[in-house]
């Protein structure tokens, strides 16, 4: 079970059992629906932006432990951040999740709790579970796309 425990660390199991900011935002300025057609996971991400800053961020949906925990950690992580910071985090997290195991994170980026998601790098079939929420956020903030699918990005 050792390598399993590296995938399903306590922090992942905890965020799966009690996802943070798991709600609908009434005053969302941005929102998008994310869908993984391979497994049927669906996530909707809501963001309330004011003065280039994320005032509130939340999500809803159905998904596996990895996608739920990743989206939950994302909302915790980005609450109150500026849009520029959010964009940087997206790039850094995507880099972290899609590189081979043991690749160091991008310089100047403190993963914090998100390091717990690193276990997916040993499970190529599960990487898209971890990136779904982040791609959906990206779509919400970019305004043009209202729905994303994990199948559009061959590198994720």
């Amino acid at each position, binding site marked *: *079970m050792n*390598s399993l425990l590296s995938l*399903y660390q306590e922090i992942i*199991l905890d965020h799966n*059992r009690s996802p943070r900011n798991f709600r609908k935002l009434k005053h969302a300025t941005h929102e998008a629906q994310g869908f993984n057609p391979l*497994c049927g996971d669906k996530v909707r991400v809501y963001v309330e932006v004011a003065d280039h800053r994320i005032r509130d961020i939340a999500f809803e949906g159905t998904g596996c432990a990895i996608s739920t925990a990743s989206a939950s950690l994302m909302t915790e992580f980005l609450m109150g951040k500026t849009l520029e910071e959010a964009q940087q985090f997206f790039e850094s997290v995507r880099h972290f999740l899609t590189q081979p195991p043991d690749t160091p994170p991008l310089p100047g980026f403190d993963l914090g709790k998100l390091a717990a998601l690193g276990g997916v790098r040993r499970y190529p079939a599960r990487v898209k579970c971890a990136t779904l929420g982040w791609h959906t956020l990206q779509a919400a903030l970019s305004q043009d796309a209202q729905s994303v699918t994990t199948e559009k990005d061959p590198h994720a």
Partner: protein
Amino acid sequence: MSTSITSERNRSPLADRMLSWRDDFPILRERVHGKPLVYFDNAATTQKPRSVIRVMTEYFEKQNANVHRGVHSLSEVATTLYEEARKTVARFLQAGSPSEIIFTRGTTESINLIAQVLGQVVIRPGDEIILSELEHHSNIVPWQLLCEKTGAHLRVIPILESGDLDAEAGSRLFGPKTRILALAHVSNALGTVNDLAPWIRLAHERGALAVIDGAQAIPHLPVDVAALDCDFYVFSGHKLYGPTGIGVLYGKSVWLERLPPWQGGGDMITSVTFQKTQYAASPQRFEAGTPPIAQAIGLAEAIRYLEAVGYADIQSQENRITEYVLQRLREIPGIHLIGEPRERAAIVSFVLDGIHPHDIGTVLDQQGIAVRAGHHCAMPLMEHYRVPATVRASFAFYNTLNEVDVMIEALGKTVELFGR
């Protein structure tokens, strides 16, 4: 206690015979993540016995040539082997003649072929094609494409909560506009065995054609197309212990003689000029280009192998495993079996409260157990049961009760890990 039941049952003559057949499958001795492989994804594809691997290797090493072309000896050998394979399939299905057997790439291609050629001669705007809520995407989308092209409409036979077809509601769909019934013999997601005869009769009473998707049936039960009286029956080689890249389309000769070609190319003509091409008769008319020769030979060997094992033993062993797995699964708190059909092939779908099927699939994989987690290419069916996905365990005669115990134990660990 369950272990002692298992070992006792494993000493039965049937179990002994099955264990000796199991030895013919080299891959079943592999280890995954350091654990003995427990292969419960047989509805996705079955493993291959040594004899199938051997005839295909032999073909490439000693007999490889193109068919229906050369006058040289190897081409004649290859042609004979390929046409013998067709005869084996015809006999296996109780077809009237080998010319009723068309080789394709698989079930999906067989359905697309028949949908497209029937579309040219049978379907008019406003006509209706009936299928069921149980269907795999491969028996939905080709018909949808045909509807878009011709202005025909789909009608869907609903299912009951048990996963059986709703005969009452379904039979009301048949009417004067019904042209085609496209129905699964066995559901890939739930294991439901459909009682085909009344449905085929209903179709014929309305002058409609019956196309049966046998991909999930043929590994588990003997199929007699003459007795079924279906117009078309399709299946894939790789779900029948044969190779990928080969499928079968059986069609009644009265239909195949009347239908136009599908793809154009070599091998499907009798003469070509720039003014007019004469098409060959079935099956050549529907097999343009070089066919999957080695795969057809492999499929024929898989059929011979399956017949040597015998459907009687296959069904006894698979029923024994399926009953045991259902009994053990019901012991797990928070489990929900998806579909409890009257008659079931060796396929079981379930969900566990609070644990996503993909997480279950990953945890089981770590224990060496291969199951399918997902929507099983049957999204409308998942919608019906209001689940995004299920875990599906599907069995073959080479599986054992001990392997079921390994899975049940791993499911227990999964429940523990996710700490409900």
